[in-house]
């Protein structure tokens, strides 16, 4: 087992949609990063390959570019052909999806503009009664 706390990862962010009541286009949540940490996670290529079809790759690229930090690995604009046999690609995807941890920052619903603060790695997704 590794021994540092996990914080929100970009894999999870890529899967998140806004749960604000009545929102039709709540994806992707706009991510603004205050502090991020890179924590090593065991490389599991099979898992990355299995998750690829579930990801919104353009949203991932857009989010990675918007963060714009040197810790963010370069990834191609589209998933290459036969990703399962492209280790260089899988390692970059692995770092981006599972090793970059958002410690402080916020996410914003693109439609309702509800803001979800991230404090000590934990996003606050609570809604006001009228938003739920």
């Amino acid at each position, binding site marked *: 087992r590794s021994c540092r*706390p996990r914080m929100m990862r970009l894999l999870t962010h890529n899967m998140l949609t806004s749960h604000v009541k009545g929102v039709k286009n709540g994806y992707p949540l706009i991510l603004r990063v205050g502090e991020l940490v890179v924590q090593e996670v065991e490389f599991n290529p099979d898992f990355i390959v299995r998750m690829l079809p579930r990801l919104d790759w353009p949203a991932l690229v857009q989010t990675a570019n918007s963060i714009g930090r040197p810790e963010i690995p370069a990834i191609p604009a589209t998933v290459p052909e036969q990703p399962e046999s492209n280790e260089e690609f899988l390692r970059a995807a692995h770092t981006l999806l*599972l090793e970059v941890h958002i410690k402080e920052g916020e996410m914003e619903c693109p439609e309702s503009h509800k803001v979800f603060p991230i404090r000590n790695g934990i996003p606050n*997704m609570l809604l006001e009664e009228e938003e*739920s």
Partner: protein
Amino acid sequence: ELFYDSVEARKYTANTRMIEIQQQLTQRCIELLNLPEDQTCFLLDIGCGSGLSGDELSELGHVWVGMDISRDMLDVASEREVEGDLFHQDMGQGVGFRPGTFDGVISVSALQWLCNADKRSHNPRKRLHRFFSSLYACMSHGARAVFQFYPESPDQMELVTTFALKAGFTGGIVIDYPNSTRAKKVFLCLFAGTVGTLPSGKSEH
């Protein structure tokens, strides 16, 4: 106070007997999930608390996301260095993930809270509907959701089952050791996108 404050959260997490019970309940939930063998799955833990259930998922090599209404419990989870991503969230307000995100969902000792109206504005039926419909939408085809919970009455068991089925799930209640007041455990076992056969509860014979 309904939820755990900081002191209670720490006490709860340090209680050996409590840990043991949570582990057993989680292991049974995982068994009922019936995940493919030797595969790292992406799982959701609803009411993850201080991460005792998540530890069992990590132990098996799964990647998980946990959510809980108590920030104090989540802070304990964070201090304990659990491996899942943690979200401060009220399940009655629904969950928001892309379609087909999760290979499975577990929940240990949390679902009964959804039946309570802990605020005047809370409407349990509305919250049950919102929860189950949003959960159904983010599960992968053929995935299961297993909730161990403590229903306060047969009516409450029926209520949660009704709202789960209305949301599109199939499945129902599985009871282990139904004739034992001590060992009896209730699970709501749900299938998304397929018609599954409800597993049998454990019994003395």
